[in-house]
């Protein structure tokens, strides 16, 4: 790239940062939010490329790129290609998808339940999805043979989706009374459902043989290590579709902040909104859990962090969460696979290390305005 152009781009980026700072000072939330979304796009792309460039093994991204666009003499090493295209790229893509889906699911649930603590992981939706997946692994071909035959490699995401959906519906049923969702009931019911699905999972783990157990341990900690194009192809349609629906929910979720009755009087089709929101959360969470196991805290940390900066407007919160969620998960995966290289850590450990202290900090900081 010519020097002047690089300089120009650099100027524009520093300009963006300066703009964001100015708007933050001026307290102009919506303009700040728009700028931040732009900044997050840049950061996400940079992280994505950075993650493809770093890892335990040496590989030349430039060579692979030249090969991809057909410029290279075909001397591209198989090693380079495998590392970049079959190992790092799927992990980055899956990290982006799963991170975005968890963060957006968090935003939608928090908006829907008008509760800052709602998170697919915290209220049992993820464990419900895990249960669906574990059921499929343990009872496997004997019981679910037809399902395998019908869905092929989609069987696992589909099972996880139904596990997540059933849990979400139950949770919603239990916590909502007279059109009002009780925060306390929601959290307690979430804990109860989490315990219940955990117990059923425990029974299945007990029944499992050694080989199935190996497949199962994965669900507890979560990992992007198994990322490959087959998994992405299985999960991406479900995740992308449920993410694509959420922008249409933004206005409704904003209105619901004032209460469901108020939203209804503002002309929001509240019931339909809730239904769509629940199905999309269950689908996104289910598909994410199916391909990457239970990765915690992304759904709660990302939306909170963004709410602190850009405020509660879902029109910006949703895209910003998707971007930041994906970025954070890719970063966490980079840490997971480089810190003890050539071995690697489960990513759930990394997200919990980042997420849990942050969560506590939020808790202490905003105790009063969270109704706790």
């Amino acid at each position, binding site marked *: 790239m010519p020097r002047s152009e690089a300089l120009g781009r650099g100027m524009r980026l520093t300009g963006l940062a300066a703009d964001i700072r100015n708007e933050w000072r001026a307290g102009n939330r919506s303009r700040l939010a728009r700028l931040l979304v732009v900044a997050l796009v840049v950061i996400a792309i940079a992280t994505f490329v950075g993650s493809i460039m770093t890892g*335990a*093994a*040496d590989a030349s991204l430039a060579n692979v790129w030249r090969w991809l666009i057909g410029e290279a003499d075909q001397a591209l090493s*198989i*090693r380079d290609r*495998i*590392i970049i*295209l*079959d*190992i*790092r*790229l*799927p992990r980055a893509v899956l990290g982006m998808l799963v991170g975005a889906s968890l963060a957006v699911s968090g935003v939608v649930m928090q908006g829907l339940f008008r509760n800052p603590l709602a998170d697919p992981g915290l209220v049992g939706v993820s464990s419900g999805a895990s249960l669906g997946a574990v059921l499929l692994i343990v009872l496997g071909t004997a019981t679910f043979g037809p399902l395998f035959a019908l869905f*092929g*490699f*989609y069987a696992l*995401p589909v099972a996880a*989706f139904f596990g997540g*959906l059933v849990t979400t*519906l139950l949770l*919603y*049923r239990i916590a*909502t*009374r*007279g*059109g009002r969702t009780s925060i306390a009931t929601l959290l307690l019911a979430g804990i109860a459902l989490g315990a219940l699905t955990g117990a059923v999972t425990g029974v299945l783990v*007990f029944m499992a*043989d*050694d*080989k199935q157990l*190996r*497949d199962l341990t994965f669900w507890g900690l979560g990992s992007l*290590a*198994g*990322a*490959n*194009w*087959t*998994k992405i*192809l*299985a999960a991406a*349609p*479900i995740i992308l*579709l449920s993410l694509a*629906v959420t922008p249409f929910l933004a206005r409704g979720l904003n209105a619901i902040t004032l209460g469901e009755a108020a939203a209804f009087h503002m002309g929001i089709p509240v*019931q*339909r909104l*809730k*239904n*769509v929101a*629940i*199905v*999309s959360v269950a*689908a996104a969470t289910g598909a994410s859990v199916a391909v990457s196991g239970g990765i915690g805290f992304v759904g709660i940390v990302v939306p909170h962090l963004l709410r602190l900066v850009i405020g509660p407007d879902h029109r910006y919160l949703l895209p910003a969460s998707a971007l930041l969620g994906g970025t954070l998960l890719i970063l966490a995966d980079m840490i997971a*696979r480089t810190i*003890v*290289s*050539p*071995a*690697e850590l489960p990513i759930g450990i990394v997200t919990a290390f980042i997420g849990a202290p942050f969560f506590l900090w939020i808790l202490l900081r905003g105790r009063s305005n969270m109704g706790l």
Partner: protein
Amino acid sequence: MINGLDFRRLRRSGLALGAFALSATFLLPAVAPDAPAFIRTAMAEDTQKADVSRVVSVGGAVTEIIYALGEEGRLVGRDSTSTYPEAAKTLPDVGYMRQLAPEGIIAVNPSAIVAVEGSGPPEALAVLKEANIAFTSVPETFDKAGIPTKIRAVGAFLGVEDKAETLAKSVEADLDAAVAEGAARADGERKRVLFILSTQGGKVMASGQGTAANGIIELAGAVNAVGTFPGYKALTDEAIVEAKPDVILMMDRGGEHAAKAEELFAMPALSLTPAAQNKALVRMDGLHLLGFGPRTASAVRELNAAIYGKKANASQ
């Protein structure tokens, strides 16, 4: 329905969305290959004889065999279960055998991988295969015949069949001799051994059929006290009392305190067993005991001696 979720409406809007989400994915299996490869070309050269000059060894027994064959010069990496001999620990550790990371393995630049059966996950192995790294899975059985089979498999892969044959023969003879002592024993005097994997939270995890522990107990001429279930399971207190073990067998995880035996036998269920009355606790190095590698004959002798007390060097 006034409150809560309106299922009739859900059927129309929500489930329609769900159904669409699911049906959209049906269109894709046709496009998707059943393997993770992004591009699958230039694979033909893989069919010729594998280059086994730079090897990653996965599984403690496999690593031991490579050292026993004197082929350790080829090793460029090992998994975390490969802790013997001491020199193996200086090799880069590519992680736990069941949770291998493809990039970590590629990073040590191997031309081949020898792994014990059950290593994985399958996704990682698929990627490594794609990367033209020769791979072989060494069959694992927890009986006498399994060990020479492993040695021959490793030898054949490394192209040192003759050395492997010699090693297999000597290991086999040694093993036969070690096992003969135990096998000669009359059924009536065979002791009942309970292998305890862990006692986490007062819960005794014991080994049933088809486990390495079961295999080594039988080779040592003893009886597995809990041979009624497959794999490792948590036992109830009553089942432990019923099992009437004469000897408790555990892995020596190193740095264990002497008081541990007392604690163990103070557990209510265990305190009622013959093992507790005789304070019969045997601790052995996990890889030595359960590895089913070249050292198994010595493990059999050590265990046999510890159980039946023929030699003085039995551990407490």
